[in-house]
């Protein structure tokens, strides 16, 4: 699996297809995050913006490899593991991006609740912002996995489905990402930084299920 992950991450890095989603994320953050604003609010925004970016990265990792090259790797290690390697590479990339963004935002934001009423230590804010960002990365990867090959094969259906899925994952009540983000936003009002453990666990379970479906279908659908 290490060799597969190394191959997939090298493929992602060298293909330079990671550039558009990363630039999009940077633009999201430049628009939505100002230095000196309440930290938890900004972290909530940072986490929420990561979800569509993670979905896009997943789509890049899974569809970027030409079918014949995928077959060569799948013959060596099995189609399910080859598919899983692509999904995990995207998830790691999204998690890395989210972690970096969370740390930067925690450092440049105002360590206080809305209206500067309650002090929120930057490390405390990071401790609640990181799980939220990871939950969004996991859920975004799950959305990406369920809206691209081999689950949905036509681009015309897959891309709108991915965008809709990412939007729903952020706004529908009961979604782990929505719970994590609204926890941060509420925390910014009260000054109490919650650690969203439950949303993180729920997001991990959803991502595991989505990855399992995607890996299982890898050998069953037409190439």
């Amino acid at each position, binding site marked *: 699996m290490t*060799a*597969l992950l*190394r*191959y997939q991450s*090298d*493929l992602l890095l*060298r*293909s*330079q297809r990671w550039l558009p989603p990363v630039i999009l994320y940077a633009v999201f953050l430049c628009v939505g995050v100002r230095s000196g604003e309440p930290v938890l609010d900004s972290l909530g925004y940072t986490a929420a913006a990561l979800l569509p970016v993670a979905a896009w990265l997943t789509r890049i990792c899974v569809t970027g*490899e*030409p*079918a*014949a*090259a995928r*077959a*060569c*790797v*799948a*013959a*060596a*290690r*099995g*189609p399910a593991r080859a598919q899983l390697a692509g999904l995990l590479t995207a998830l790691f990339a999204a998690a890395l991006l989210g972690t970096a963004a969370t740390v930067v935002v925690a450092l440049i934001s105002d360590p206080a609740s809305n209206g500067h009423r309650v002090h929120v230590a930057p490390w405390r804010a990071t401790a609640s912002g990181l799980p939220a960002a990871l939950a969004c990365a996991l859920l975004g990867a799950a959305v990406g996995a369920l809206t691209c090959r081999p689950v949905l094969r036509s681009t015309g259906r897959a891309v709108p489905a991915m965008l809709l899925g990412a939007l729903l994952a952020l706004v529908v009540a009961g979604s782990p990402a929505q719970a994590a983000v609204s926890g941060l936003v509420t925390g910014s009002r009260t000054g109490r930084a919650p650690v969203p453990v439950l949303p993180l666990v729920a997001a991990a379970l959803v991502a595991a299920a989505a990855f399992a479906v995607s890996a299982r279908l890898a*050998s*069953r*659908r*037409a*190439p």
Partner: protein
Amino acid sequence: MRQEVRLTAVGRRYGLRGPWVLRGVDLGVGPGTLVRVDGANGSGKSTLLRLLARLDAPSEGRISGRPRTAYVPERFPAALPFTPLGYLAHLGAVHGLPREAAARAAKTWLERFGAEAYGRTPMARLSKGSSQKVAVAQALVGDPELLVLDEAWTGLDAPARAELERAVAERTAAGGAVVFVDHDPRRLAGMPDATCTVTGGRLERRTGGHGAAVAGPLTVVTVQGATGSQLPSHVSEVVVSGAEIGGGRHRLVVPASRSDVLLRALLTAAPPWHVVGVVPAADDSGNRS
């Protein structure tokens, strides 16, 4: 840990109500066997190979056995952001080699196919033939137990085609299984242990191949052994015919693509055999490809 791949009553169709591409296929590919798959365009040859390589799951029936497999696809993409050496090192590692060994194997196989000059050229700039050499090399870097070749010879130049035939002979001699599709009927002529024909979604299996059916170029190897010594037992699996010509000498006729395998067997036997001569067979009517 060599394993046989066995297809039992296997059928495959794409989609829940799609037409059956293959149905009722029973086929076993054991260690050391070479299987040729024939059939018209679109008859399901590629699907059969994908099933054998475990790339596709069967829609019905079952497949057992999971040897270490390498697959050469029909059309290999140049659109990979690697150099051939970088790509082959990755694939070697994916096949389970340590990283240094993978890098060494990558270099060796590129040299064998005469592509070492392009080792550091981005793959997007390779010609179709050079790209195909990379496709073939990626399958051989990992010393697979099962090698599945889907028209792997197409696009290769003559020396590379001959090299691939030798590589196939080496793999089967080393106990690996090879399954291949090729449109040239002379490809590896006389060597396959079985030929399968796909027609109308069914598989017809014909065994045999050695002896009178040999159609490819032949090589005559004359060897001399210590008095009274017997030819190594696996020599008989390679040669088309063999006869003692007196003085402890044997005249062995072997398909040209397997002559290296035969010589290796004789020279590494205990006690080793002395090679008196190696010449192309007289009745080789120039049908080299």
